[in-house]
């Protein structure tokens, strides 16, 4: 009897203590992946690249105007003349340049978005060589990461610095743009901030990364699974964009030509189908978005297509500048039908407001489904034509340009009376063709520079907002001269505070 009286408590104690194995305190997350489990196999490394593809259309989780690259593209176009918000909404701050100049808003979002992309790319680049697996697959993964690093820096350099070929910038002591401060440069993952590198240094890195990516894509010979992934053609496309800004015409023409091989231009029907299908023959790169990952109100299509009954329906429609539509798009141009005319809108019960865009449409009504275009063969044709024209190869430029524009406007004729005239025509085609796809801000900055063979009158340079379209949203920014400080995004205040390398704020 005494025995169990003693034994029972002791047994309880022993049972309690024996439950404590060493592993008891080892717990691993399930809603996240520990980093050590990512780069120990190819599929983990592949997933890390896929994450960046997803990032391109993520919803940042904060403001509804933060939905990846498409939101930044919209901001870039709103900072030009051709895309106007018809009402108050999340993108007002972009339109009136508060996003670029204010302490927060989309400017700060784009900053963290691209640097997050760079950090993800850097981690992959640093780790991929140590991952067991086939070299070709590893090369392909590395090439995609290099591509994204270049892509992010290309956008950042254009936002935070003067355009590459600008000269004599007063605020930085008359230096040429390449010698002026740009963004901090990181080529490996770190927790410590760097000071600003120059525009020249950033572009050197961009060019080096693109060249390396093209070589790796070509060497690996792996075909991509879908168009949200990067391949050699997309890398060449980015190379062409970069060369265009750098005024490296030969390279721009070559890369643009190589990039668009294998793609064919959209026809009339496709052009009016809503720009929402990544499988379009002309799309080189785009985000392929499914129902579960579509970002509802915080999505490009919510702000663009009022039929989706998102923000375009409730707050403000995105409209085209009236002169561009009325005076600069020929009536024989099918792209005129991508917009609502004033007369249409005046009809009773017509569902759209005047000049409202109908280029981008939701794929299935009652959903938020629409893929986002990120690079198209049309843009490559326009780069190639412009680069040829800058080299005074007007015939070559004419061929490329007409072949492309005829798919939109069969009546089109290239004006080859002078390279000035032809280039102006190409620039206009860029505004029409690439409307809503995020090219205008970078083009405005790029086209304000001096060109060797082309003369742009000083009063044509910079931003000149005209048009009598009476938006409820007013912007104090109507004209920006090429040297205006407002071309520059200001760094987020948190970067100034926390970067131990020291960040000099943009003027």
């Amino acid at each position, binding site marked *: 009897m005494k025995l169990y009286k003693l034994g*029972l*408590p002791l047994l*309880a*104690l022993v049972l*309690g203590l024996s*439950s*404590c194995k060493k592993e008891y*305190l*080892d*717990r691993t*997350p*399930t*809603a*996240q*992946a*520990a*980093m*050590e489990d990512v780069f120990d196999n190819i599929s983990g490394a592949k*997933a*890390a690249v*896929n*994450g960046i*593809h*997803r990032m391109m259309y993520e919803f940042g989780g904060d403001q509804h105007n933060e939905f990846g690259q498409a939101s930044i593209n919209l901001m870039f176009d709103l900072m030009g003349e051709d895309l106007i918000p018809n*009402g*108050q909404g999340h993108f007002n701050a972009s339109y*009136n340049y508060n996003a670029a*100049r*204010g302490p927060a808003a989309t400017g*700060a979002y784009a900053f*963290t978005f691209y*640097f*997050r992309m*760079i*950090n993800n790319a850097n981690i992959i680049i640093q780790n991929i060589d140590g991952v067991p697996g086939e070299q070709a697959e590893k090369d392909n993964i590395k090439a995609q990461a290099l591509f994204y690093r270049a892509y992010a820096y290309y956008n950042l350099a254009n936002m935070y610095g003067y355009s590459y070929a600008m000269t004599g910038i007063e605020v930085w002591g008359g230096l040429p743009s390449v010698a002026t401060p740009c963004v901090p440069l*990181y080529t490996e993952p770190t*927790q410590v*901030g760097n000071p600003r590198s120059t525009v020249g240094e950033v572009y050197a890195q961009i060019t080096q990364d693109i060249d390396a990516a093209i070589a790796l894509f070509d060497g690996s010979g792996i075909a991509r*699974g879908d168009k949200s992934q990067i391949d050699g053609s997309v890398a060449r496309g980015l190379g062409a964009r970069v060369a265009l800004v750098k005024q490296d015409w030969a390279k721009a023409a070559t890369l643009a030509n190589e990039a668009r091989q294998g793609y064919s231009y959209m026809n009339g029907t496709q052009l009016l189908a809503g720009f929402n299908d990544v499988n379009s023959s002309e799309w080189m790169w785009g985000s*392929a*978005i499914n*129902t579960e*990952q579509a970002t*509802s109100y915080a999505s490009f299509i919510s702000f663009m297509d009022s039929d989706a009954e*998102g923000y375009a*329906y*409730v707050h403000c429609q995105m409209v085209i500048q009236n002169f561009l539509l009325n005076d600069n798009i020929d009536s024989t141009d099918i792209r005129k039908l991508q917009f609502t005319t004033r007369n249409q809108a005046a009809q009773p019960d017509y569902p759209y407001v005047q000049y409202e865009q109908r280029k981008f449409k939701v794929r299935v009504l*009652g*959903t938020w489904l629409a893929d986002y275009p990120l690079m198209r063969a049309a843009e490559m044709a326009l780069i190639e034509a412009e680069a040829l024209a800058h080299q005074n190869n007007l015939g070559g430029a004419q061929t490329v340009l007409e072949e492309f524009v005829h798919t939109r406007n069969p009546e089109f004729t290239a004006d080859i009376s002078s390279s000035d005239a032809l280039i102006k025509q190409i620039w206009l085609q860029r505004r029409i063709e690439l409307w809503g796809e995020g090219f205008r801000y970078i083009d405005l900055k790029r086209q304000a520079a001096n060109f060797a063979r082309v003369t742009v009158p000083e009063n044509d340079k910079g931003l000149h907002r005209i048009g009598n379209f009476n938006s409820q*949203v*007013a*912007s104090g*920014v109507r004209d920006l001269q090429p040297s205006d400080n407002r071309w520059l995004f*200001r760094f987020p205040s*948190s*970067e100034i*505070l*926390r*970067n131990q390398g020291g*960040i000099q704020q943009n003027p």
Partner: protein
Amino acid sequence: MRKTLLLLALFLWTGMQVAMAQSRTLKGRVLDKNGEGVPGASVKVQGTTVGTVTDIDGNYEIQIPEGSEVLEISSLTDGKATVAIGEGDEVATVTLKEDASQQIGEVSIYGKAIDKKSFTGSIATITADDIARRPVTDITKALEGAAPGVAITSGGGQPGASPDIQIRGQNTLSASSAPLIVLDGAPYSGSMVSINPNDIESMTVLKDAAATSIYGSRGANGVILLVSKKGKKTGKPQINVDASVGMLNRSMPLYKTLGAKEYLETAYAAYSNGPGKTSGQLSSAQFLAYLGNYNPYNVPNGELMQIEDVDLANGIKEGTVNPNASLLYDDSWFNELNQVGIRHVYNVSVANGDDRGNYRFSVGYNNDQGIVKNSSYDRITARLNVNANVTDWLKSGMNVAGTMDNQRFFVGDQQAYINPFMTAQVMGPIYPVYRYDSLGNRMKDINGDDLYDFGVNGTNNPSRLPQTRPFATNMNPVASLFQDDRSTRAFSGFGNAYLNATFLKDFNVVVNFGLNMYNSTTNQFQNMLFGDASNIGGRMDRTIFNRITTNFNQILTWTPSFSIFAEDEDHNADLVLGHENYLITDNNATIERTGFIGPQFMEGSAAALGTGSSSSLSELAMESYFAILSYNFKEKYYFSASLRTDGSSRFSPENRWGTFWSVGAGWMMNEESFLENLEWMNMLKFRGSYGITGNEALNAAGYYAWMPRYSFYPNNSNPGIIFSTWGNPNLRWEGQFKFNIGFDFAFFANRINGTIDYFLSGADDLLFVRPFAPSVGTGGIYDNVGSMQNSGVELQLNGDIIRKSNFTYNARLNLTHVRNKITKVQTEDSLIGGGTILAKGFAVNSFYLPHFAGVDPATGAAQYEKRDGTLTTDYATLENEDYNILGSSFRDLEGSLTNTFSYKNFDLSFMISFGLGGQFYDGIYARLMSSSRGEAYHEDIVKRWRKPGDVTDVPKVEYDALYQSPLSDRFLVSNSFMNIKAATLGYTLPANTLEKLNLKSLRVFVQADNLYYLSARTGLDVQQDFFGSSSFAYFPYRTIMFGLNLGL
């Protein structure tokens, strides 16, 4: 002693005479264990308010109502006793036995019962009586003003939500500041609101190291011990029924905002001052188009505003509303959202006990309607507490409880337009709740119900133009309350079982197993007909969350009764050794579907499209070993020590274990010869303690803070991941030393008693997210970044100001002063957040803002002072050095005053809580002073700058300004407040009436909570947040309850 009492009772019983039909006088004396009279002891007839107190020699005299059977004696110094009295007794002498005396209920720490005399730590106890005075659904709300050093927020006023608790100030940065809750001996991780306050016998707040170090890594923020009610030896079953019903309404008004006329005039100025206006855009019609063509007046848009040039040279225009215009409608969003809520509370309990064990069973039902329409909380609780003395050496028991609750809520998110508290405050006054046709009549649907205005309308409205409401477009928070469904149904189960065995004479072992389960289903359904989800055919979201917590501990106690101690009874000691492990498992599953077949369907199976689903599992494991040593000499000198080591899965294997310890001492000074002769001194105890506690409670994302991680981020159907955060393998416990000295005292026949404490605590290795420069591409990591110090004084003073046999007045004052200071910030001098700073030498989150220097009379722009004393109107040019550290939210003094009166059978009490000093950043006011299109303006805006030369401190209004009311000291106000908190008026029926009704006891009462609130600005609730920032949260409500407590 117990035997003596029983014999006494038996003696009284056998001496009983024939029942007498009236009250009579009973005399007696209360003695302490040494046979000396106890002065100031309370003598009360059980079940009544009839009571008296003993005189200096311990004598008393009391009127005993007919039918009364039991006297309750209690003394602050010598404990409590109950005695049965016979009908014929004239004299009843009661001896209080000290052992049981100082116990505060049955509070114990790891099996070691704590009493006020031997305990060397600083504690405060809130009894069932205190809790009963507060008409609260959530027991944590009863903590406000209840004890010095304990603060709670008013937040979480949504029915069924809990406030935050802070003990002795802010002791941490980003780790949780919530104290550890221990329910009947097991750490409690469930929701506080699932505990029925009526089931709680006592809440004991442990504040210093002597009390909290034994809880190791979780003791840094203090510990609250909850003890549930148990059955007592009462002879026959005690059946109690409590019922009350009452109402809730909003206790404080809204901020004062402009009506339609002044609003339109201000909005016009803001519109015309906006950037890039052409003259064509400044017409009345264009202005109203800008406001979405909402014209509440009976004149056309083009004629509503009369435009005047106030300063032609600078093109400054103002608009006034046409004096001939009259309002067509004037809907109040607040009135449509707000309601007087009804609350019902019912509790029934049965309890009994004898030498073989005891039981108590209770069932409670609680139904609260919120002060926002269609928000409510109802709860059913059941608890069974059974304890059995199995043999003379083995005890066992079990405490099981279950709670089912259902919370209907609204979206309280600060950015959600559908948050009713935001809408009620921010919606411009020209925007109606309901649709009005072109004649200004309210429109009806086919059922004759009012049509809601969702903000996107055709031309059938007073303006006869298509309408788009700029604020909360396509939404109507009132409609959403009725047409959508947001609710959480939860089941909580709690079980705690123990075995307690005594063996080998001096040893005792207790094994506790506690299991806590919380299972909730949260629905968020949005209808397919109107609003946010109408374009996708309605949407349903469901989150199923399941948390299981297990706690298993084994405690060995050795109370030596041999060797040196046995020879001299002056030495008493015991030693407790224990082991504990703890595991939290969180399971989460969510689904989201859209595209419903019809408006009457709400479940996912009726929806066409899956638009989101996920699941996850998180675990947190802890393991601990501990020891507690207690010793006293002659019950005059006390000493205690504790040691504990904890391991947690939160940290890397190298930094997993932490060691925590404490020492404490107590000295009963009044038992020393030099004080013994002071008759007025009943008790004086000095105590002190020092120890180390810890904190590891990072939020759920911090479960794995030591490892670098990727988040899952699939790209279409390809699995994908994105880098989430770096890990910090060096992350370790946040440690804290706590030093405390204090006195407990009772003077003048115990009429004045209280506690005074001085404390100093220092936290090291504070856990915080160390932010990175955004350009490194990731947000920051958890790190041990700094140190801080809290020092303070606490006073609790309790006085029986009037002690008459039929009238008593007791006042209790609680005062707390805490000073918080950061002593180290590791990597930099300071860490700057949005408007706040963590800087050495200053309190946590001190405000860090530029100085607002009035308005430039020439331009109307706000001016800010730069470091060199110059003024600028360009906010963007302000650099860090232009910012000032401007105090913190911490108040200089917080306290409460509780007054309790009793007169014959009536009792009345009320409590005033207050705080003095500190700063509060009134963000809501800031927003209302610089509204965006469609948003309301505070009435102070009428002082705005209008034309050059105006001298004012309110800048010009301007829509689309680059900086809209940027952070500055312009919006800092005092954090002081005064709140008449809880008031109760009760009447206890006299015993003779009760007998006629065949009842044991009956008390009827009226209770009120949040009667009156005073703060720096109308509408401002400074208690909503510990850090002095405002949000559109559920405002505190006033509660008025009528009820009864019935003993059968």
